[in-house]
């Protein structure tokens, strides 16, 4: 196993598959493009399986490491590796890619090859972000992943897609440019190294730490997204095609949170401690205020988008309490949100494909015509509300437990999401699914087909499995999380 460059395969198999799919050309070959894309996505998922089976849970060190010089002029290396934190996201991303290809199977009938290729290439780039141990390599993947999503939103999106695509691209680019300057600054301060692991060990004085932390914060806060730089997300979600929304919610939002763990906390631990109150405050605003904003949404996608922001508030809250419970809870929340938000967007997509509306008022009584679908939708709505036995509960509960130890009032505010979250999700569910059949569109609905059933089952397995038996997910992250906490407890100021 040691000889196979598994991480390289996880990155380049989807990208290569995407290029092959592009070669099928026009829509005359659409069935072939779809089959090839599915094949590529499944192959991409299969190559990540040995990452889990061959993973050594006892060590916090990087595993499956690959190191080769890339640009020796600036000492930039092709340096890959995963620990208990990043490995899960590589797998989640590869899994979601399969879902996305299936989700667009019938709906996308325009430029099919480009659509699928875009997602496959993006999948490879996202795996590259999670697997990079070199700062520049990380940045290059981080920034390059904007291009496919920009095109996906812009080409296959809704009526206001151009605005959403530009807003998405420029917002995230704005954040990442300051991040680039910080990387260059660290490169120079460390005497010419782009290795993230070297930076972890490097002592930095307090003032530069603060600046670096703030520059990182801009980049990652936009990606998470944290209040008040979240405004691009509802626009992007609403306009993106279903597949785009799924990837955005399930993976792209995780990049910011992952950045905190890989960059902010270990490189600038003192600044992180110093500014943790600020981050916690922002997180609570996201949880409480954005939760209330979600309550009044009329568009289902917007509602789930705001609920994503609130859920990501839990993640940042969990990170900045500096306890093992909080951090593991946040990580579980990240993975679980990948399944649940992905599923929620897929469910909305299933209805949108039939009725071509995302507005809650255009629905009502869907359960009468789509009983199987209603059952799945129920499960995911409950999971989104954080019902026990679903994965949504595990992460939130762990974070709230950690918060009680940290400060009662923080925990109180965070726990309010249990009520608000249940309110907006279940109220939407009630208005859409229950009641009398609202109009002839709903009356003409047909229940989900085999393909949709398969997608929903896969996602349900993830959400339920993680809720009932979270140990396989938490045990791989233990030693990495503990090591990270040990690391950031030590001051880096000389």
């Amino acid at each position: 196993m040691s000889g196979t460059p598994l991480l390289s395969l996880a990155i380049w198999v989807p990208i290569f598959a995407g290029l092959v799919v592009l070669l099928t050309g026009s829509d005359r070959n659409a069935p072939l493009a779809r089959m090839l894309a599915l094949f590529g996505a499944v192959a991409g998922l299969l190559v990540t399986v040995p990452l889990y089976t061959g993973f050594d849970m006892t060590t916090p060190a990087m595993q499956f490491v690959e190191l080769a010089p890339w640009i020796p002029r600036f000492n930039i290396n092709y340096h890959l590796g995963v620990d208990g934190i990043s490995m899960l996201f590589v797998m989640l991303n590869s899994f979601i890619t399969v879902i996305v290809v299936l989700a667009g199977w019938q709906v996308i009938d325009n430029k099919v090859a480009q659509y699928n290729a875009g997602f496959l290439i993006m999948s490879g780039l996202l795996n590259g972000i999670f697997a990079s141990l070199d700062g520049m390599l990380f940045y290059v993947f981080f920034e390059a992943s904007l291009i496919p999503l920009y095109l996906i939103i812009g080409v296959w999106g809704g009526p206001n897609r151009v605005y959403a695509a530009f807003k998405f691209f420029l917002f995230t680019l704005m954040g990442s440019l300051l991040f680039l300057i910080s990387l260059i600054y660290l490169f120079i301060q460390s005497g010419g190294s782009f290795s993230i692991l070297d930076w972890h060990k490097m002592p930095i004085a307090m003032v530069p730490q603060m600046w670096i932390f703030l520059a990182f914060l801009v980049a990652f806060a936009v990606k998470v997204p944290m209040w008040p730089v979240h405004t691009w997300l509802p626009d992007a979600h609403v306009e993106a095609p279903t597949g785009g929304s799924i990837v955005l919610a399930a993976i792209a939002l995780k990049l910011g949170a992952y950045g905190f763990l890989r960059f902010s906390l270990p490189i600038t631990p003192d600044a992180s401690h110093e500014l943790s109150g600020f981050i916690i405050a922002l997180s609570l605003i996201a949880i409480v205020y954005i939760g209330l904003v979600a309550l009044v949404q009329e568009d289902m996608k917007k509602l789930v988008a705001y609920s994503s922001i609130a859920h990501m508030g839990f993640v940042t809250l969990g990170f900045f309490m500096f306890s093992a419970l909080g951090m593991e809870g946040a990580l579980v929340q990240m993975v679980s949100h990948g399944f649940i938000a992905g599923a929620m967007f897929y469910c909305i997509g299933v209805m949108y494909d039939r009725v071509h509306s995302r507005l809650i008022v255009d629905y009502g009584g869907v359960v009468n015509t789509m009983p199987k679908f209603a059952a799945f939708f129920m499960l995911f709505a409950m999971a989104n509300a954080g019902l026990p036995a679903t994965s949504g509960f595990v992460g939130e509960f762990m974070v709230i437990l950690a918060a009680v130890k940290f400060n009662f009032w923080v925990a109180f505010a965070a726990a309010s999401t249990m009520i608000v979250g249940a309110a907006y999700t279940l109220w939407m569910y009630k208005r859409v699914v229950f009641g009398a059949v609202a109009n002839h569109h709903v009356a003409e609905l047909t229940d989900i087909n085999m393909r949709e059933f398969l997608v929903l089952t896969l996602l349900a397995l993830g959400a339920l499995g993680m809720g009932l038996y979270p140990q396989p997910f938490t045990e791989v992250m233990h030693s990495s999380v503990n090591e990270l906490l040990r690391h950031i407890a030590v001051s880096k100021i000389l």
Partner: protein
Amino acid sequence: MTLAEMQFVPPDLRLASAEIFMLAMACLILIVDLFVKDKRRTVTYVLTQLTLVGATVVTILMTTGQIVYTFSGMYVGDLMGDLLKVFLYITVMVVLFYSRGYVLDRPQMARGEYYTLTLFATLGMMVMISANHFLTIYIGIELLSLSLYAMVALNRDSVSATEAAMKYFVLGALASGLLLYGMSMIYGATGTLEISGLAERLFSGQANRTILGFGLVFLVSGIAFKLGVVPFHMWIPDVYHGAPTAVTLFIASAPKLAAFAIVMRLLVNGLLVASQDWQLMLLILSVLSMAVGNFAAIAQTNLKRMLAYSAISHMGFMLLGMVTGVVGGDARYALNAYSSSMFYILTYVLTSAGTFGMIMLLARAGFESDEISDFAGLNKRSPWFAAMMMMMMFSLAGIPFFVGFFAKFSVLQAVVAAGYLWLAIAAVFFSLVGAYYYLRVVKVMYFDPPVHTSRIEAPMDVKILMSANGLAVALLGVFPQTLMSLCALSLLRSL
């Protein structure tokens, strides 16, 4: 100096054999063209391309890797010059290749003069690149500029082209005057016109600093005009827009290499001692260019004009590397900074050639295809070329994995290494502004429905070259190391 000392030393002609070859061939082609009856001027065209191939071979064969002077110190041969020249020949070849169809569609342009003027302009740039003397630089600049004025006006029935040529000529003559005036002042301050001698005089402190300072201001103004940076940029949008696209392509690519060379020759080789002064001037020019170029480009609807403003901002970005070579009298970072600027300019020329080439690929007889809206729905008409154009746009915007990103990165790291953090932040801010209008071109190609539905008709060889150009932008973005170290090596051997 006594008569006995004034011996005549015969110059080593071999060092300048590429220039001599170019001159001879240009004259020969001028004569041969008189006897060409063919309206397509195929013979002239092929001979021109062969001349450029020949010059490439000669330059590579004659490379010594050392710094050598000839013509009594008026001419210098070094690795930087050779590298720039080889890139120059390749650029001109590519330019002629792309322009071939465009020129044939426009009878006014399809004359022998187009080719001979191109060769004379190229010769001018070669002279600029290898100049070690103020007068040599001036001769080179004039040879280039006079050829370009004529080329802009080649399509003489076009009002806008004539206007552009007139504007270019008047402002260009003014800039040449400024440059010459600056040179004369520096001569007054130091008593020499030879660039390597100038450095020695300045180093030993035998120069009048006041006059030197005045001279420097004029010199930098002249150079700034040739580079096209704010506030000496007024000619760029009008000339880019008004000139026939084939000529715009030429102006937008090759002369940037020569302009970079004279910045290196005059300011770095000659006036490094005064770097405190000229770095500050370039700093102001650079920030202004990035600001004006990027913001003005947003408002453009004509692609050529937009790319003109984009060129201004890119030259500003390139100058950042020239600003950060010497920090507080410490020239430790010089090699790093200047080689990053060189890498920037080479990759910019590559990308710029591709974008203008794409405009000509879509142009037909009587249709210029230079409005941004002419690119609407290109992805429907030709997914392949839309992808090529997209890669070039993202490269210009500085998004990885395209070479423009590494160009920006290498300049930025030089800026941060020199301690100008605020400058780096300003530069990325303006890049963010710039990303908007490049994204708009991508938006038009991918998100909008097509306006024209005709197939793209271009000869196979142009299509292949266009694809190679686009793929080079991507490939150099994945593997930038070779070109980066080539730039560093050539400067290491030449400074």
